[in-house]
Structure formats: C-alpha cells, structure tokens
C-alpha cells in the first residue's frame, strides 16, 4: 500500500470536520427517535475511526513537513489554515481513538437520554470543535475551534437543565471557558506582535522577542482553565458530572487533552526558546494540582465527581512532565527533555483511555441504579459483571499499577525526575525531587481512592434497593468498555510501540527523540540506558499471571475445594443491616484526618448521648472547599456588589440619561481639546 500524500490527509481531516458538522445539523432533525440518535452516534464512531487512521498515517508518514490546506471559509482578513504536523497528528490520534470508542458506547447508552434533542445535535459539533483546534495552523482557527468546543460542551452540560445544580455548573463552566479563551486571545495577540501575522508559521518565524514569559503565563492560565489546573479547576467537578456520561467521558478524558495540546503548541512550538525558570511555575502548579486533585477525590463520594477530581490529578501529572521537559530543554539536556515530553504525551494517551473507560463504567452504573452516590451502591459485581471487570481494569490503570498503561507513563515521568540532578541550576534541582515526592504521594493516594471507588461501588452488599435491582448494561456499551480496557492493557504490555509512535513529536518540538524501543529484545523499554532502568510490561504481566494462577491453584488444592456462600461476618451484631458495611466515608476517614484539617478545614464533632439516653450518638463532619472559599467567593461577592451598584443605571429618568450622554460628549471634547 502506498503512503497517502500529506495533502490528501489534510483534505480527509477537513472533510471529516465537515461531515461532523453536517451530522450535527442532521442530529437536530432526527434525534427524537432512538434509531436517529443511534445513527448519529454510529456515524460519529465511523468518522472518528477514519480520523484516527488518518492521523496515524500523518504521524508515521514519511513527510515531516505539514501540508496546509487553506479553507474557503473563515474571517475575511485571514486564511483558515488547517493541516497535520506531527504534534497535531499525535493529538488527533489520541482524541479520536477515545472519541470513536465513546461514540460506540453512546450508540447503546445515548438512547436513554431524557431529552435526546438537547444532546445528540451538540455531540458531533463538540467533536468537530475539538478536531478543529487540533488541526488549526493559525491562531484564529485555533480560537474559533476552541470557542466552538467550549460552547458545544456547555450546551451538553446544560442538557439536563431542570436541576439547579446543573445550571450552576453550566454557568461556572461558561465563565471559566470565556476567561480562558480571553487569555489565549491575548497570548496569541502577543505572539503575533504588531505586524499581526496570525498563522503559526508566521509566529514561528517572527514572534517578537521578550514576550515569552508573559505568553507562558497566559497559556498556563488559558489552557489550564480548560484542563483543570488548580486553582482553575473549580468548574471541572461541577460540569463533568452534570453532562450525560458519554459526554462526561469526552469532556474529562478527551477535551482536557485538547487543552494540553494548546499548552504544548503555544509553549513548546510558538513561544520560542524557553528559559530554565519557565519550568518553575509549571512544575509548582502541576505538583499542587496533582496532590489537591487526589485529596479532593478522596473526600468525594459521588462517583462521577470523584472521577472528575482524578482528572485534575492526572492533568497535574501531565504538566509535571511538560514542566520537566521545559527545564531540560532550556538547559540543553535534549534526551532528558525528550523523555519528559514523551512521558507527558504518553500519559495524555493513557488518561484519555482509562478516564473514558471509568466514566463509561460510571455511566453504566448510573443508568442501572440511578445513583451516583457511592454510599447507595455496593455489590454490583454480581449484577454487572462486565462493567465491574472493565471498571476494575480502569482502576488498576489509573492507579498506575503494572501491567496496565498508567504505570508506564508514570514510571517514565519518574525516570525523568530522577534525571534532575543533571540540571545546572540549584532551584529546579531542589524543586524537582520535591515534585517527585508529591507525585509518589499522589500515586499512592490515587490507588487508595480507587480501592474505595471500586470496593464500595462493586463489592460488598447492595446499600439500596436501586443497587440490588441493577442490571447489566447493553451490548454496545459493554463492547466499548471492553475495547477501552483492552486498549489500556495493550498500551501497558507494548509500551515500546507507543513511545516509538510519539518519537516524531519530540523530533518536531525538541529536535531529538528517544532510542527506538521496538528494537529492544523481549518488548522491553529502556528510556535512557539499560544499566540504569528498564521495564518489560509483558514480562511483568506474565509474572503476575503465573503468580496469581499458582496462588489460586495452591489455595484451591490445599485450602478449600469449592466456593462457599455463607452469611457475612456481622461484627458481632445480630442485625446484619447493609449499613454496617464499610462505607466510602469511613474508608476515607484516615486520609481526611491526616490532610483534612490543613487542606479542607475538616472538623469532626462527636455527640454522645448521656448514659440512659437512648438517642443515637452522632458524628458530624464539616469539610470546606478552602480554595473555592478563598479564591472564588470574594470574586463573586465583588461582582455582586458592583452589579448591584450599576443596576441603578437601569432606572434613571430620560433626562438623566441625556445628561450622561451630554457629560460624556463634553468630557471627550475636553480630552480632544486638551490633547494638543
């Protein structure tokens, strides 16, 4: 088979975006019928699958030079340029692989939507927006795609508009998205300079000197607000759970990756050569994000909100990799930079798979039980075996346990952290190990959190009638979840191929790449030097399987021959109520005691009844979202106060309005007169 030309690939991609937009229009017509929404989601699956293949061809194709396609639509003074370079191709691949599978899930799941006409038309538009951002080769198309993506996902968040909680989530999301887009607009404005060349090529050639640090800050704020960097994460745990679950999977698993792409594009590609201290804010913010994300997740008992907070944590991990890459690149340690960037983008890929998987699993649970609160779930492994097994796979992957994919990318990140003593400056040399410790702590806490999430939801006994009458989800959904779980496992077993596939990206951005990993014997990966470190996912998997099988055999042979069912241990209480089980709250209590009083101002109050009083003892826990209360509430109050004042302008008399106009006119004239 001959390799398709880059022009053809760009045309295919542009065509795919066009098809998605048409599907969006078609969706508004035929969404009401279940068959119609199945058709739309099925078409999305096909289009995204085709885009995945296209992006793969563009990523691994021979031509390093992107083919720009000038679209006939767009702003009058500027061209809409789209096309693949290697970075775009990698992210288009990541985004559309996950989106294709999620759309497959939606073929089955999407028909349960209460008001499909509020979901189905916006879904393809959202996907089209994300792809436009990734393919854009000029700042205007990038921003238009970005806004398109934001607005379409906003419409999806507010699709269940009857609940006040969702409306609030949508409002917070809209405000954050607008603010983020505004900062990006300023960032691109700075990059384009007064000459105003807005295509990426022109910016690369002639970005004005000295704007780098400011652009870095703007990019960190602008893309960070979309990705969920602390303290700009506030909308994420509100909005992600509010959307239908397949949309949550896209927003959490995929859209945040588009934001990461934006950061990589601006900082690594457009902003010019970095200085070493650029990495400091990125690393600091990323470390704080990682730790706080997982702590918030531990305090959370709503399954989807928990997953959303974990997205915050994982974005932190990705940005740690990006920060390291900046530090290494600025000091000329090219191969270390390539390792960090590869680790970050590998984690982007992994997170898009397992976070989508987990959200799809939570969607299946939500549909089967109508519950998102873990305290109402339990015992689902018996009634939803496929969902339980795939969810478990996702939990293992996100907890960074071998042989799944999450381990590989975090291991690579740690390898990069271990290279930090090579840095010449003492500030990052001190900071990076601290960041590494934070990352290690977060990884452990994440594992704890997913023991909680899986254990409380799927194990034990049902805590509510809804949970005890749950049923397995439909075939499409099961298939999609199985596919994602297999993809997680495959990426964990064969990481060398993924690393090799990402090599063109580091080649493009840093001018170097990691050694070819698929040439290593026994599917091993060796990021730096075989004497230093190596990991063999397949071997680890074989060892795990052998050890587990041996243990199982031994236990069966020497202990009990058969599965026994008996009454659960009742802790000495004759009343075997399901409420006596371990709960999510009790599982998280030790963590809350350790970190809670500092981070969440958690207070526990125990009220014991007097002896002889038969009323129950009470344990009350106060947990505050300190960040929200210290950063956001004052702003909200200020805006309220200002609008309250300005509101009086609505009720002036006609003559007062005329006076205002007159005063403004005279003032302007005075300025004009005084100017000369």
């Amino acid at each position, binding site marked *: 088979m001959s390799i398709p030309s880059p022009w053809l690939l760009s045309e295919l991609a542009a065509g795919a975006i066009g098809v998605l937009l048409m599907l969006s229009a078609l969706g508004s017509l035929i969404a009401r019928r279940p068959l119609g929404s199945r058709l739309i989601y099925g078409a999305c699956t096909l289009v995204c699958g085709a885009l995945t293949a296209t992006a793969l061809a563009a990523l691994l194709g021979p031509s390093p030079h992107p083919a720009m396609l000038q679209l006939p639509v767009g702003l009058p003074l500027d061209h809409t340029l789209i096309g693949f370079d290697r970075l775009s191709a990698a992210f288009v691949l990541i985004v559309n692989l996950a989106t294709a599978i999620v759309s497959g899930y939606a073929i089955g799941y999407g028909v349960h939507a209460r008001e499909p006409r509020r979901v189905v038309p916006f879904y393809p538009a959202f996907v089209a927006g994300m792809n436009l951002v990734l393919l854009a080769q000029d700042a205007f198309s990038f921003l238009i795609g970005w806004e398109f993506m934001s607005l379409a996902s906003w419409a999806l968040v507010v699709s269940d508009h009857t609940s006040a909680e969702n409306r609030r989530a949508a409002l917070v999301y809209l405000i954050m998205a607008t603010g983020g887009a505004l900062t990006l607009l300023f960032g691109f404005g700075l990059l384009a300079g007064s000459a105003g060349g807005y295509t990426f090529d022109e910016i690369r050639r002639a970005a004005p000197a000295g704007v780098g640090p400011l652009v870095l800050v703007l990019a960190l704020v602008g893309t960070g607000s979309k990705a969920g960097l602390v303290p700009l994460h506030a909308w994420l745990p509100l909005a992600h759970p509010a959307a239908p679950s397949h949309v949550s999977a896209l927003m959490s698993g995929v859209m945040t990756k588009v934001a990461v792409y934006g950061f990589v594009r601006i900082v690594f590609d457009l902003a010019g050569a970095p200085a070493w201290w650029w990495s400091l804010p990125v690393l600091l913010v990323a470390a704080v994000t990682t730790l706080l994300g997982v702590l918030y997740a531990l305090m959370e008992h709503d399954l989807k909100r928990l997953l959303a907070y974990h997205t915050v944590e994982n974005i932190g991990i990705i940005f740690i990799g990006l920060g390291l890459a900046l530090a290494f690149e600025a000091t000329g340690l090219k191969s270390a930079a390539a390792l960090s960037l590869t680790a970050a983008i590998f984690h982007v890929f992994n997170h898009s798979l397992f976070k989508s998987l987990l959200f799809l699993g939570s969607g299946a649970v939500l549909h089967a039980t109508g519950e998102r609160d873990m305290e109402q779930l339990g015992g689902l492994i018996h009634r939803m075996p496929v969902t339980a097994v795939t969810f478990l796979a996702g939990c293992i992957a996100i907890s960074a346990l071998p042989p799944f994919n999450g381990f590989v990318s975090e291991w690579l990140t740690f390898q990069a952290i271990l290279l930090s003593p090579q840095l010449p400056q003492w500030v990052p040399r001190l900071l990076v190990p601290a960041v590494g410790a934070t990352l290690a702590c977060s990884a452990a806490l994440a594992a704890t959190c997913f023991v909680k999430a899986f254990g409380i939801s799927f194990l034990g006994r049902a805590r509510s009638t809804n949970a005890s009458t749950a049923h397995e989800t439909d075939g499409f959904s099961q298939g999609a979840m199985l596919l994602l779980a297999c993809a997680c496992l495959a990426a964990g077993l064969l990481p060398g191929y993924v690393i090799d596939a990402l090599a063109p990206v580091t080649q493009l951005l840093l001018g170097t790449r990691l050694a070819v990993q698929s040439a290593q014997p026994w599917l091993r990966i060796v990021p730096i030097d075989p004497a230093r470190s190596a990991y063999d996912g397949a071997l680890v998997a074989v060892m795990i399987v052998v050890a587990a099988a041996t243990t199982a055999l031994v236990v069966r042979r020497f202990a009990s021959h058969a599965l026994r069912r008996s009454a659960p241990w009742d802790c000495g209480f004759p009343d075997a109520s399901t409420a006596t089980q371990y709960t999510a709250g009790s599982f998280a209590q030790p963590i809350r005691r350790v970190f809670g009083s500092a981070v969440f101002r958690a207070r526990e109050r125990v009220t014991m009844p007097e002896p002889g009083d038969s009323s129950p003892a009470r344990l009350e826990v106060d947990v505050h979202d300190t960040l929200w209360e210290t950063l956001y509430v004052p702003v909200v109050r200020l805006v309220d106060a200002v609008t309250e004042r300005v509101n009086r302008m609505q*009720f002036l*008399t*006609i*003559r007062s309005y*005329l006076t205002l106009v*007159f005063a403004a006119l*005279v003032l302007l*004239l005075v300025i004009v*007169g005084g100017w000369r």
Partner: protein
Amino acid sequence: MTPLDTDIAHLLAGSMVLVSFLLLYQDRMFALLNFFAIHACVLALSVGWQAYLQRAPHLFITALIALLFKAVIIPVALHRIVVRLGIHRAIETVVGTGPTMLIGIGLVALSIVVMLPVTTSEGAFAREDLAFALSVVLLGFMMMITRRNAVSQVIGFMSLENGLVLAATGARGMPLVVEISVGFSILIAFLVVGIFLFRIRERCDTVDLQALDMSRGESPGESA
C-alpha cells in the same frame, strides 16, 4: 472669496449661536417658539449665503426647506399644540438662568478650543463655521437636558439639528439626498413627538416629564 463674504458668513453663523443663547433662557412657551422660528430663519439665511458663495444651487433647496419647515410649519404647529394643550404658563428650568448661561459660554469656549486646532488644514472660513456649529449643537443638547417640558425639549432637539445642518453646509460636504432625508426625519420626529404629547397628556393630564417619572414609580426628587 472676499473678506466681506467671509465676514457675512461668520455674522450669520454667529447670530445662530446668539439665538441659541436666547432660546436657552426663554421661560415662556410662545417666546420660545418665536425664537426657534428666528433660529431657523437665520439658518436659512446662512445656508442661502453659503449656496451663493459656493455656487451650489442645491443648497438653496436646503435653505428653502429650512425656511419652510423649521421657520414656518413646525413653529406654527407647535404653537397650536401648545394652545390646545393649554400650557402657556412659564417654563421651569431645572438649573437657574444664570448658571445655564455661564455653562453655555463655557460650551462655546470649549467648541472653539476643540475645533480650531483640529481643523487647521481647512480654510479659516470653514474652521470658524464649524466651531459655531458645534456650539449650536452643544447648546441645543444642553437645552434638552435643562428643560422639563416635553415641548421645549423638542425645540432643543430641533435647534441641535439646525447646528448639524450649519456644520454640513459649511464643510461643503453633505449631498442633497442626505440633506433631504435629514429634513424628513426631523419632520417625522416632529409628528411622532406631537402625537406622543397628546397621548401623554391623555394619560397623565400633563406634559411635564417629571409626572412621567412619577408614573414609573419614582419620586420627583430623584430626577434632579
């Protein structure tokens, strides 16, 4: 263009500013209407003189329109409206006459300070004309905000429009089409305002705008 020609143009434009000041402190309805008619007459003279100077016959039409509509039809119609509404009593100005005049002088000074440096590329003739025109506009605007009676606000608006016409003819700019359309828009505004005056009177038994504010549920003290 002889110095005499320029002087006559300035005389006429300056007279418009003077009449604007006269309008500003008239506190009787009929006197106000009469001075507005004079304002329009001076405008017509001024435009006519410009037409003669610039050899621009279409400006004669403009002058004719000004004379016909603004100096005759509108004042006569407003006169009848005032009679039918029965409001020949004194007009209360919001700011006293003295301060109003002082502010007006300030506005004229301002427009001269602004206009003269801005228009250095133009001839002296157009420059001073523009300064006068801006003064007339500002004075008309000020009349709109210092008056409480709807009829006198209409007069203020129309004197403002006279200033615009003066500026347009002085700058040799505005084509006839624009001129006519402005004239018609003024006429329509006059009709609409006249109809509204009667509607307001039917509802509120007054054309004092303060009464309207009160009907919106506000106290009269707030409108100062």
